[in-house]
């Protein structure tokens, strides 16, 4: 494993709770709330007004910007609220049937357009619009397409389940994505703690010469795009650059499935698989939930919260966001909803840094987290920038290993915001 990236950590994975359970389809909720910005890029503008009736799969918001993706109604019903944040639809369960037809295309451009119109973004959590990713700039040739099946965040098993249950669709989607970006081969990277997925994938690609499956070391953050590329081909994506610079495009497992469905059935992105897990939930499982479903409905579907539940996390435990309320909708980027009991919630006071360098050793980006935090604390932003604060991927490895329990990532986020704000003002 010498070609793997340096640093990284080995937190407790806690995946067994949900890894064996098939994905459950959730019934449509009474109401969905679809935020206008569910992706990286320009937010969408509503195409409907309050009181309109929409069909399932109807495009309800879009943007003129290239780096953006439209939003579709995940249910049929009546628009009950449109503001600058979101659109809410009251579900008409009778009419909520999606119908579409296979899409045809004649060239890469048309294929990319289909992907864009389906509103597909990176479903691993990064939510970068997929059609942008598969559109290399002038003069750049893509030779390799990669599927990110690492799923290194603890608890999360969505990609794992999707690979097992929708592997065929994923391969089909990968072929489409390969075509869209012009790559000649596909490498599927899967962490070695999912041997069943590796085996299943190997079987599926047995007759596909352009495909390869590679098992990668179990180490967080193996699923981070640049780190996974390093592990798979031994090359480092340039700092502040993109995989494109190496002729590589990488997409998530579920994204490939979504692309397949968009082309094969004309189905835009209406739902996604969410891992609902953690000690505070009664029935941990993977759920295919319509976008816009509230966390409350999702949790209800999974048997509700245990009385000791104290912390709700949108995403994985390393990079996810803590939610203060259950009235939050599931969006395109929601890979998991984790519920932690009170005794698992860390409420440490910050000790002084003892310069133990654990964070330095753990940082997959080879940064010096202790100095970065010090500089941000003392508002020495130039110094922080000089030692590459902006290259931090906020993976949380440093905070995880810190014996002084310093919320390093928190400082970095603050520092980055301040630097961005300052740069904007200049």
């Amino acid at each position, binding site marked *: 494993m010498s070609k793997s990236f340096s640093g990284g950590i080995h937190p407790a994975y806690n995946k067994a709770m949900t890894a064996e359970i098939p994905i459950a389809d959730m019934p449509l909720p009474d109401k969905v709330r679809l935020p206008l910005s569910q992706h990286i890029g320009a937010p969408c503008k509503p195409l409907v007004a309050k009181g309109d009736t929409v069909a399932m799969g109807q495009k309800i918001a879009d943007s003129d910007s290239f780096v953006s993706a439209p939003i579709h109604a995940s249910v049929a019903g009546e628009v009950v609220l449109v503001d600058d944040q979101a659109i809410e639809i009251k579900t008409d369960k009778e009419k909520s049937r999606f119908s579409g037809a296979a899409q045809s295309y004649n060239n890469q451009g048309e294929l990319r357009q289909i992907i864009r119109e389906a509103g597909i973004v990176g479903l691993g959590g990064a939510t970068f619009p997929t059609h942008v990713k598969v559109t290399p700039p002038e003069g750049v040739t893509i030779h390799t397409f990669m599927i990110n099946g690492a799923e290194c965040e603890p608890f999360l098993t969505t990609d794992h389940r999707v690979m097992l249950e929708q592997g065929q669709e994923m391969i089909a989607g990968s072929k489409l994505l390969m075509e869209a970006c012009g790559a000649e081969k596909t490498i599927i990277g899967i962490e070695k703690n999912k041997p069943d997925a590796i085996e299943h994938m190997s079987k599926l690609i047995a007759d596909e010469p352009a495909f390869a499956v590679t098992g990668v070391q179990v180490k967080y953050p193996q699923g981070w795009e640049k780190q996974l590329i390093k592990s798979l081909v031994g090359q480092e994506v340039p*700092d502040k650059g993109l995989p494109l610079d190496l002729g590589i495009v990488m997409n998530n497992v579920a994204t490939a499935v979504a692309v397949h469905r968009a082309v094969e059935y004309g189905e835009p992105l209406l739902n996604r698989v969410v891992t609902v897990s953690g000690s505070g939930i009664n029935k941990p499982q993977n759920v295919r939930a319509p976008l816009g479903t509230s966390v409350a409905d999702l949790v209800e579907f999974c048997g509700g919260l245990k009385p000791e539940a104290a912390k709700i996390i949108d995403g994985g435990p*390393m990079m996810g966001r803590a939610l203060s309320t259950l009235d939050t909708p599931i969006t395109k980027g929601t890979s998991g909803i984790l519920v932690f009991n009170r005794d698992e919630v*860390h409420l440490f006071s910050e000790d002084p840094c003892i310069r133990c360098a654990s964070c330095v050793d753990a940082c997959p980006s*080879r940064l010096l987290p202790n*100095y970065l935090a010090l500089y941000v604390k003392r508002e020495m932003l130039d110094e922080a920038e000089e030692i590459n604060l902006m290259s931090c991927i906020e993976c949380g490895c440093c905070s995880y290993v810190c014996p002084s329990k310093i919320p390093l990532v928190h400082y970095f986020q603050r520092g980055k915001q301040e630097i961005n704000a300052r740069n904007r003002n200049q």
Partner: protein
Amino acid sequence: MTDKFVVGPSPHVLGPKTVKSVMWEVVIALAPVSIAGILLFGLDALLVLVTATVTAMILEALVLHRNLKPASILGDGSAAVSGLILGLILPPSTPLWMVVIAAAVGILLGKHAFGGLGNNIFNPALVARAFVFMSWPVAMTTWHGPLSLSDWTTRVSVDVASSASPLGGAQHGLMEMFLGQTAGSIGETSALAILLGAIFLIVRGHIDWRAPLGYVGSAAVVAAIYSFLGGDFALTTIAWQLMAGGLLFAAVFMITDMVTSPVTKTGRLLFGIGCGLITMVIRLYLSAPEGVTYGILFMNAMVPLIDRYTVPKVFGEVKSR
């Protein structure tokens, strides 16, 4: 469902290490050398170790908490580490009042005058040793030979005649030096015990190999060159230099002191090499019998500079040009 849930920055799971656990594990790693020191030097050694450790812990409690509750005295364990290390690098015959002053200098001047844990530039134990060494050079260079088995059965605290340490010219076999049956500071004589501690620290991931290797390696190279030029090049000479004095102890417990060593990987190696070179130059060419203290203190002052010039290349930087 309007419950308020706990919010906080990511990550939401944290590793098991705490400052306390790190410090107390260092204390555990110091157990073999402490035990070896007590076995070799008897009750005197025990008293020095206890005095140094307890004084350091009490002073730390007074400075930080202004009370002497048990929890304050135990604290985060960093004072215990500094105090114990200080005790281990003193001669077993050090008068106890001197030990108290040393511990006070280490904790008050070496640590809290700089702002307490994490802010001290110099290793507190070494500041203390430098202070007492300069204040009472004779007491600090008076060594007593180790106890023999018969000493143990007859009397535990012996009024042994002072004898030379290996660096002071005493001749010992390498095996004697490996086991620690020579005159010297309480924790510095037994290479075996030091290595046991080192193995524990490495296995537990508290120390990195770079600084110790750079230190021992550069010292060995200097010893090799020196003995080569002297015409008596032999592996035993090098092994002798490495096991004499406080070099091995420092390699495992002092240049790996987290607070006062660089955080970058290259930096740790450079730091070790620098400490080794200065230590050997002092040993071989200057009037001080042992260069470990000043070698490391000098390099401690260089740490911010080393860190500054060894900032690692960020992920992907290599390929960017």
